[in-house]
């Protein structure tokens, strides 16, 4: 990629072109390797999509669709609790994302800008909580939620998911805020804004790419979480999508047709959010991971 500044082309291309000139076999080999990798990456989701349009009894036929049908979709939407699960998931994930991004941003900002007593322990806490295995927490958490009456309640899952997503997000947001010049904060203070005003009106708008990445991360984490959702939500009408999908294919039933259709409907919102956020992803991840 050549970037132009004031109409001047960077002097680099002369050297890089030489380096990037490949012999023909090398070029072919490169493309073959990449095509194989791309096929391996794309095939499973593609096959899922294809299977979802096959009649239920053909779910395992090897061919591409011979009898194209929407039967799986209509069955899933009309005859199962799928829409309820979808609604449950949207509520849980939406709340988690909004709250998670907000408190990750305030924490990241405080850690990035202020030196305050308790800062170092807090950074450590954020790092260490990322390693906590589900297994230590799940039973006590189950009991805690039970005693608070939050089992089978969206609020219970939201709080739980916050603890998974926020530490990593706060860490990433700190990396982002570190790249925003402190002069901006100072100009805000000169104009008479208090620290919250500076954060809310000046810094947060500049950190939009960072917010997109943390929002994406929170969304994906919550949308795809299985262990807590399976343990805390029981009863058909309380399940989220991760739990609901398990009911199509388990030791008792083998409804692969419905499973594939439901899976496609679940994957689409996630893929859309991903497409929206992926532009910022590289920058966000490297900012978050290389600065500690």
């Amino acid at each position, binding site marked *: 990629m050549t970037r132009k500044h004031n109409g001047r082309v960077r002097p680099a291309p002369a050297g890089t072109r030489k380096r990037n000139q490949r012999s023909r076999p090398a070029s072919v080999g490169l493309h073959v390797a*990449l095509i194989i990798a*791309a096929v391996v990456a794309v095939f499973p989701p593609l096959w899922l999509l294809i299977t979802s349009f096959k009649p239920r009894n053909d779910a395992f036929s090897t061919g591409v669709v011979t009898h194209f049908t929407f039967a799986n979709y209509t069955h899933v939407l009309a005859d199962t609790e799928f829409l309820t699960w979808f609604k449950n998931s949207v509520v849980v994930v939406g709340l988690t994302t909004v709250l998670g991004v907000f408190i990750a941003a305030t924490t990241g900002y405080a850690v990035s800008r202020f030196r305050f007593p308790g800062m170092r322990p807090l950074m450590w806490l954020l790092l*260490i909580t990322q390693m906590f295995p589900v*297994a230590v927490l*799940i039973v006590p958490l189950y009991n805690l939620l039970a005693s608070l009456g939050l089992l089978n309640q969206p609020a219970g899952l939201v709080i739980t998911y916050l603890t998974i997503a926020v530490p990593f997000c706060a860490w990433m947001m700190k990396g982002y805020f570190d790249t925003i010049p402190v002069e901006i904060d100072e100009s805000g203070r000169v104009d008479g804004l208090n620290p919250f005003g500076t954060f809310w009106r000046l810094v947060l708008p500049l950190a939009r790419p960072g917010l997109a990445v943390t929002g994406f991360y929170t969304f994906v984490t919550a949308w795809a979480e299985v*262990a807590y959702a399976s343990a805390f939500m029981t009863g058909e009408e309380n399940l989220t999508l991760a739990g609901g999908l398990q009911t199509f294919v388990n030791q008792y039933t083998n409804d*692969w047709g419905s499973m594939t259709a439901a899976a496609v409907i679940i994957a689409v919102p996630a893929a859309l959010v991903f497409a929206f956020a992926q532009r910022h992803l590289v920058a966000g991840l490297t900012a978050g991971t290389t600065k500690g």
Partner: protein
Amino acid sequence: MTLAVRVRRALGTHWYAWTMVAPVVLVIGVIIGYPLVRGVFLSLTDANEANVERNIGVNHLPATYKFTGLDNYKAVLTDGVFWDRLGWTVVWTVGCVGLTFLIGLTLANMLNRTLRGRTFYRLALILPWAIPAFISVFTWRMLYNEKNGILNKLLAGGGIDAVPWLNDPTWAKLSVIAVNVWLGVPFMLVALLGGLTSIPGELYEAAEMDGAGPWQRFRNITMPGLRAVSSTVILLSTIWTFNMFPVIFLLTRGGPGDATEILVTYAYRLSFVDSPRNFSESAAWGVLILVLLSVVAVVYRRALRKQGEVW
């Protein structure tokens, strides 16, 4: 200065910083701090489904479990199951992280050059990341299906006998690793690609002028340039893989037998799947897992520091 004055002064200077971090501290304290303390406590008792506090209908039954000291730990550590599971978990973690990193590094290097169709390849290769993991795992279960799955049908087309992907202990182990690698490569790829683009091109030109071959350039420029990113992603992905619950739980449920059961899924099984649910032993497993992970993280950081990393 009296304590009261000092506290008031600290509040005056730092109250906004503290206010900003308060929600996180509160949430972590309640949802991780309390359960953690409670988990450690449970691991020192004989709590199970039959003796914890519970409500049956309108009757409230008080807890009747008692403190048993380190008995759970003794039992777990002397029982072969824990060591078997630990052995497999180590193989699983090292295998997954190693393969994921190698494949991610190779692909990142392939993509980090002018190339026709670069955007297409990049999008195709990160697709597995865009799809929720549990969806992908279900898809793989469908592909792996022994009688009807597409993989075995393709093999049959080539005259090869059906492979019991998920029903034979050894094949099941390879299969779960393959799925986890498939899921993990995009993250590595994106992170390493970010690292590669931040290495200045001038370094390569200079090296080339000095007559360094491709391998030498890779070893002496690319690898050192990637060290900061790769040390972080390797640590993160080790922790994630070690704790990777959904892949194994949804793909094999730990089976066949308990061949693919890693520490985390086994602990979950003890408290939520097996009957009677054994809360105390599960908690003991959890504490042991946490201790193991902390040791790994500390050792890893030491090793990095020795090499002069600041992180």
